[in-house]
């Protein structure tokens, strides 16, 4: 537990004359859930896109298990074990869960011209992995469109885990979900963490973060405002950090502490 799986140091990202990230340091250990919080426009998306190989950092260093890396594409990041589950999930509603699960990475059997999609094994693996995540599928050829938002998240997470993710970046996985589905996704995060995968949980919902987070890093205006361990910070303090302090305190007064 001494070397982080992914260690990002002083990452800067400039778009022309706009400084989206102005020196962000962030790391994630095996088996922990590190929450990255920030309001809209704080730089969360830019930061995870840098981590997952979509963007190249303008400055700064990145290490995976102690080795310096430089990703040219999302594929490089995936090969290094960094999997990202985006909000749109890369799922196709009309296709079955199995077909989605193995999309682009289908298991095959047979040789030469008789090489074929091993549907039986793919179905078996899908059912097993989904059950491990606490979801009993009716049938593996059920279309993804019939699943709830939370279940789709779980399929996407299970898929990333099955294909060897060491670090799982979840981009606002709970933002569009209801209460119960959110609870399911948070439970899934906990399961994933317990098998030794590092989870980067991006959210702007402090309560969701507090529910599963081991550490919390707050981004504001492209900078880290610090990292706190679980128990060392309260939800109110996190909320204030995210919003940049006072203004929210005033607002909160007028709204009767409901935010």
């Amino acid at each position: 537990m001494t070397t982080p799986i992914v260690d990002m140091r002083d990452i800067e990202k400039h778009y022309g004359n706009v400084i989206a990230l102005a020196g962000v340091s962030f790391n994630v250990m095996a088996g922990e859930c590190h929450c990255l919080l920030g309001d809209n426009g704080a730089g969360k998306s830019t930061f995870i896109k840098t981590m997952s190989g979509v963007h190249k950092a303008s400055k700064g260093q990145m290490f995976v298990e102690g080795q310096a890396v430089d990703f040219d594409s999302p594929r490089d990041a995936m090969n290094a074990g960094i999997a990202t589950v985006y909000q749109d999930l890369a799922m196709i509603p009309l296709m079955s869960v199995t077909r989605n699960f193995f999309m682009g990475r289908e298991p095959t059997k047979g040789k030469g011209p008789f090489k074929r999609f091993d549907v039986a094994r793919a179905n078996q693996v899908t059912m097993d992995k989904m059950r491990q995540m606490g979801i009993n599928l009716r049938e593996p050829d059920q279309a993804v469109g019939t699943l709830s938002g939370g279940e789709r998240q779980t399929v996407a997470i299970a898929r990333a885990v099955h294909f060897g993710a060491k670090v799982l970046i979840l981009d606002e996985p709970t933002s569009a979900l209801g209460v119960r589905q959110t609870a399911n996704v948070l439970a899934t995060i906990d399961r994933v963490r317990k098998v030794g995968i590092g989870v980067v949980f991006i959210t702007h919902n402090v309560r969701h973060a507090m529910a599963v987070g081991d550490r919390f890093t707050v981004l504001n205006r492209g900078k880290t405002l610090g990292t706190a361990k679980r128990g060392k910070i309260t939800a109110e303090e996190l909320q204030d950090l995210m919003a940049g302090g006072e203004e929210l305190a005033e607002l909160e007064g007028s709204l009767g502490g409901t935010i």
Partner: protein
Amino acid sequence: MASDTTTGDERLKRVSLMARLMKRPELGAVAGLVLVTLFFLITADRVMFSLSGIINFMTPAAQLGILAIGAALLMIGGEFDLSVGSMVAFAGLIFGTAVTVLGLPLILAIPLTLVIAALVGVTNAQIVSRTGLPSFIVTLAFLFILRGLSLVGLKWATGGSTQMRGIREAVAGDPLVSLFSGDAFQGLFNWLASMGMIDRFSSGLPKVTGIPVSILWFALIAVLATWVLMRTPVGNWIFAAGGDATAAKNSGVPVAKVKMGLFMLTAGCAALVAIITVLDSGSTDARRGFQKEFEAIIAAVIGGCLLTGGYGSAIGAFFGAIIFGMVLIGLTYTQIDQDWYLVFLGGMLLIAVLFNNVIRKRVTGER
């Protein structure tokens, strides 16, 4: 698939076989085929469903069906090809020129025709993928370009006529002819006739001399296409490319390559139809395949393909094409005016699209 893997959730009802069948994309086509068959069993002369009658309507069904299966795969992959009808004429021109003007044997003329057709498919695919224009527009342009080229090319090759004759004479005796034209299993049919198991003339020869090879190609392509779609990684990529190209790309599916392969396939299917029909009639002309692109797409839609891509089946297009052939030929066995065919065409398309919408909602659980 092993049922013991589904120990299941007690809140879910067992899914009945019927409900499972209701989710197959080709359901509409099968139901349509049953209805059309019943209709003709009632209204048409009994001869229609004799062996020779069946072969009568299966022949045009096969020619359309080969195009329709290609069109179905491409539609599942999320694109259209409106140039297949003109491609039949264009490939007919290439093939005819190769055997008559250049005097090439079939072993060279057939690959040449297929390669040139595939290159047109590549051109379509490249324009679509590089510009991001809808394939509908790009291939509409090629509908006219290829039709025009066929006219110009035929006049050039024949010295002024839009019809090219003498193809049968040019290929006479070529060992490959029997693979693409005429009837198969003639020995078997002769034997069946001699045993009195099928209709025969008074001379003892069978009334039906064999199964036209186009029907065998049709069946073979339907089986191959279904196998690729349902049981190979490429099939999964086709569904994914049509379902959501971005999601597919992000998951490592080579979307551009898949689509290019599909455009090559539709063009290749058109070339195959051209070779078969040109060899059968011994001539080719500029009107070949006229409006076949629409019929092929309609057969694919009847077969359960969604216009938006990502869903459909090859076997559905197979049945869709048979419905076409049945109605086209079947009306001649009835007292009904044959021109009702066009009314049927439009009506069937409309019903199929409405039906597919319902099926899609059922599959995805949309409400």
